[in-house]
């Protein structure tokens, strides 16, 4: 790459929902940045301490469904276990079998320190395409 700094993720306005645009030098980096974008939507993730590690796995039938599955898994961990994440590392992304294994770091939601920003109901397929043109990008519409 030519050293140009890529914007990791961008949260865009939409009438009833939220759009998350993520990019990366590789599919794995794209997935990582999409996850960071999701973390920023859920809470003020700068205040979340990466104390504990959690294994995150997901599968799909193509890159788009893998991305939806991956982000849905992170939402599930947040809701079901009250976990907030601030860091994530993609350990393995199998582009043939459409599997992903990652380690997310964070801590349990503490109302005295953390502010929950929005509540994501679902990760949709609306206009979703994982594409490569100078970098890997995807724009995901989240139902909030």
């Amino acid at each position, binding site marked *: 790459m030519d050293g140009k700094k890529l914007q990791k993720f961008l949260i865009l*306005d*939409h*009438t*009833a929902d*939220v759009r998350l645009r993520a990019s990366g030098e590789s599919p794995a980096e794209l997935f990582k940045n999409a996850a960071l974008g999701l973390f920023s939507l859920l809470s003020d993730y700068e205040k979340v301490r990466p104390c504990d590690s959690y294994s995150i796995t997901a599968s799909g*039938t193509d890159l788009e*469904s893998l991305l*939806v*599955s991956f982000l*849905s898994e992170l939402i*599930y961990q947040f*809701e*079901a276990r*009250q976990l907030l994440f601030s860091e994530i590392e993609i350990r393995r992304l199998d582009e043939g079998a459409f599997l992903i294994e990652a380690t997310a770091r964070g801590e349990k*939601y503490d*109302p005295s320190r953390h*502010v*929950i*920003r*929005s*509540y994501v*109901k*679902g*990760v*949709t*397929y*609306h206009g979703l395409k994982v594409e490569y043109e100078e970098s890997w990008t995807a724009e995901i*519409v989240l*139902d*909030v």
Partner: protein
Amino acid sequence: MTEKFGKVERLDAFRWRLPRSYKDGMRVEGKIIAGEALMESICRDQAVEQVANVAFLPGIVGTSMAMPDIHWGYGFPIGGVAAMAVEDGVVSPGGVGYDINCGMRLLKSNLTLPDIEGRLESLIDALFQAVPSGVGEKGRIRLQERDLNRVLEQGARWAIREGYGWNEDLEFTEAGGALPSARAGEVSERAKTRGLGQLGTLGAGNHFLEVQVVEEIYDPVAAGAFGLFPGQITVMIHSGSRGLGHQVCTDFIERMNRAVNKYGIHLPDRQLCCAPIRSPEGEQYLAAMAAAANYAWANRQAIAHWTRGAFEKVFGLSAEKMGLSLVYDVAHNIAKIEEYEIEGKMKMLCVHRKGATRSFPPGHPEVPAAHRAVGQAVLVPGDMGRGSYILSGTEKAMQETFGSTCHGAGRLLSRGEAKRRTDSRELMARLRGQGIIVRSASLGTLAEEGPEAYKDVTGVVESAQGAGISRKVARMRPVAVMKG
């Protein structure tokens, strides 16, 4: 007139037709029910395209419809109604939505504003304390998995047996508060894990609990049947199936994505993923969806119970003495199996109502006996500044829209734009100046839900009336609003 909206043809002042030639592959025509003023904004977004896309679904009967509050959604538009024949049609989770059985409940009372005005602050505080709300808020109801399974199968009936309300509430709840087709076994462990801690919580976003006053009566006979009078205090609750429903939708969208290939279904939009109703995937989805719907009914029942408790605490009278009974509870994101006459024969159809409310006519057996002469109560929320409506169902809806009508005002501004234009504290002060007290679990996001962010629901309700698919009965304005 027809050029104005491209290939959309005007049938009359409130009906617009999408011919099958609009898009190659449409099995049936599309129909949009809206006044011309609403059509301008409808045609500006992708919603019309989505009405056409829904017409591709196998087994669709009649037309692919849009109610006056239509706007684009995921696959199906919001405000979309589509019915598929059970024998050879498909069911699609996108035609129900993520928040399965998001819906409305209205309580009435024998109180008027002067009765409560002096203690309105205490009342909204008591409600805020009694009903958990906001993101990450844990519920008050402690459940084990086996209890949750009962909630999923018995819905509001479970709640009443556990002491959260009155037996008579069930008669005034759509489906008696529980769909018998529910199977807890079809709801995933993940969905159950999310649901365990959230029963009896309001949720966030556009969910609310509002103390209102009946400001105008349009149909005195229907209002009388519903037990409403001018100046009366009512309470409106907007909530759904919380994380459990969202997970059920997420789980089945994934399964249906695989199912479309298995059943050779070709779709113009991946989000219309579906499976034949008479297939394992289709049956399992309907059973899980019914379970999530039952969870939502139990949820609204518990919230109503605590609402009664808050009134009792503040006014020192029993809820019975204050006449805090249930007018009606109705879903606006659901799929129901209903029977309709199609070309002279009775046919079982799966009616998808996504952001659309059932609107059954006078005389229908599913309408509570006390309301049967006037038709089913339809609850249509507006915004926290301008208020909400109660309508009644009609025979025209039965003939034309599979017994359906609108569900609410659509958003006008994005959340970001609403936050840029309005400061939450300023909004609260302004509403207080108008006599409306607001309590919010999340001040940061309150501005996103302010009146400016929404269209005026009056236009929607007038369109539905103009088309004859529901009739205005009364309008209520808010005096105290609780938001998650």
